[in-house]
């Protein structure tokens, strides 16, 4: 998917994360801050990268502010932000690109 317009999903509450996607400069640029970066930084990066990969997003600026979200929440917020940037709210590929 292309990132058509800037979009945000998630909150800064504990156990959540806020994901912002913006049109990129030819690749994925990830800016990650996390309250658990020392323990889970690599794992969080991996989950974000895999989620973007499934959604075939290859060109985006992605900003994630994490407050100790579990992997399932990180995926959900990335997906919500990407689909929002495309204005898609129906016929989501559950179990396909979303899994």
């Amino acid at each position, binding site marked *: 998917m292309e990132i058509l317009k800037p979009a945000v999903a998630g909150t800064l509450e504990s*156990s959540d994360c806020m994901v912002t996607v913006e049109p990129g400069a030819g690749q994925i640029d990830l800016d990650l801050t996390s*309250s658990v970066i*020392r*323990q*889970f930084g690599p*794992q969080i990066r991996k989950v974000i990268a895999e989620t973007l990969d499934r959604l075939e997003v290859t060109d985006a600026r992605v900003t994630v502010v994490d407050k*100790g979200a579990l992997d399932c929440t990180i995926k959900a917020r990335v997906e919500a932000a990407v689909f929002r940037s495309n204005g898609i709210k129906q016929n989501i590929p559950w179990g396909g690109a979303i899994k």
Partner: protein
Amino acid sequence: MINAVGREIPDEILKLTGKEPFQGNHYKEGVPFRRYAPIIRPVMNNEHSKLVKDIHEALVRCKAHNGMTVSFHHHFREGDLVVNMVMEEIHKMGLKNITLAATSLGKAHDPLVPMIEDGTITSIQASGVRGKIGEAISHGKLKNLAIMRSHGGRVRSLVTGETKVDIAFIGAPTADEYGNLRGVGGKNNCGVLSFSHVDGDCAEYVVAITDTLVPFPNFPAHISMTKVDYVCVVDAIGIAEKIATGAAKPTTDQRKLMMAEYCTQVVVNTPYFKDGFSYQTGVGGASIASTISLTKIMEERGIKMGFGVGGLTKPMCDLLDKGLVRVLLDTQAFDVDAVTNVLNPAHHRITAGAYANPFNKGAFVNKLDYVILASLEVDVHFNCNVVVGSDGIITGAQGGHPDTAQGAKCTIVICPLLQGRIPAICSEVTTVTTPGESVDIVVTDYGVAVNPNRPDLLEALEKADCVPLKTIEQLRDEAYAITGVPNPVEFGDRIVGIIEARDGTIMDVVREIKD
């Protein structure tokens, strides 16, 4: 060298501190020592005045100098103004290489960070540090090692002369001009002055700082004029509402209530729960809720407590008012109710030494049946960490944790399985403060684990069938299944602090955080 809790204590640290690695709780049992005594300057002249006009004069009279050690108590907690006030004056005088030996340091002392950076303060000894000072130490800004020691361990370090205090500053809610000090009767009351007794006994100079001068004699004195050199009156020693907060409202968080219920069930179904039992608990929501539900069962079964000890809160004082405990032994008052309850004749003040000093001929903690504690982390060896956050930054204090855990017959640690994404039950704690051999039962929201070295307690709880029993490894696995396995925090090579065991040996080291 690997110590008894499996922690590597580098030789250079052993050499630098002259200390031994931790070798088990009973290593120093019965080992004789001579108690340290300070130099005293007698006062016989009946016209001698102890009043000084300001802190500067006190410092001058006490011969403040580069490299000296100054001490403070933390009875004013986050409402403390005394430490900053004195350190500012020391800073203004341009003194360097000061050792700050406080009973504990908190966020109220954030303003001291620049003094750490400019070399005014080069050593810190405390139960622990919260806030910006903790961050500064973890980032390697303190020149020398920070020493974190328990309340009992601090008394030991003073009475053995390991720590020699040049000037002790005792913030006193009330004082007379001759240095009789009390924790009550003033504008900023803290109830008791338990932590400062040892300073009165062991410091070379003792300066009382008060904002409420009362007529002589300020009696009964909590700390006697016989120990005090000077009295300094200032505008305010603290901020009352931050010293003793209103009693915490009982928690409505079901998770805490569940842990409290498990804890209460553990207490009432283990063999020490009988008339005359002894008990200490903390100030966390679950601890307080547990005291409240325990009270109900005590009333139902007609069981009374022999003594309650430690930092006290309203629910413990309520026990006294209901006649459900014979005596309360108070080392610090956490809320306004506890501060005023000190006036009850069965509510006794005790010194931090009587409470927890392992080098006494016996301390109150040795007589505890139950202690209820909290912990930042507990590992599968039952080691607890209450000082260093899971992110590697110093953020807490030992307090009486290792003292009571060792002393009590049944040590219960309440700890939610997860703190956000951080598993609190883990394979190895970041830093060991209390050894697993002292910890008997861990209560989490996911179940209760009993230390395998206490088959008697396990059997009692299995028989009672009152809580979901799990092994500590099961709890750890459950936590990791939810969060993923955390990476160990990466530290730099430099050691910035040590966690001292009660007996003065080294429990663990704290390394500089890597950015």
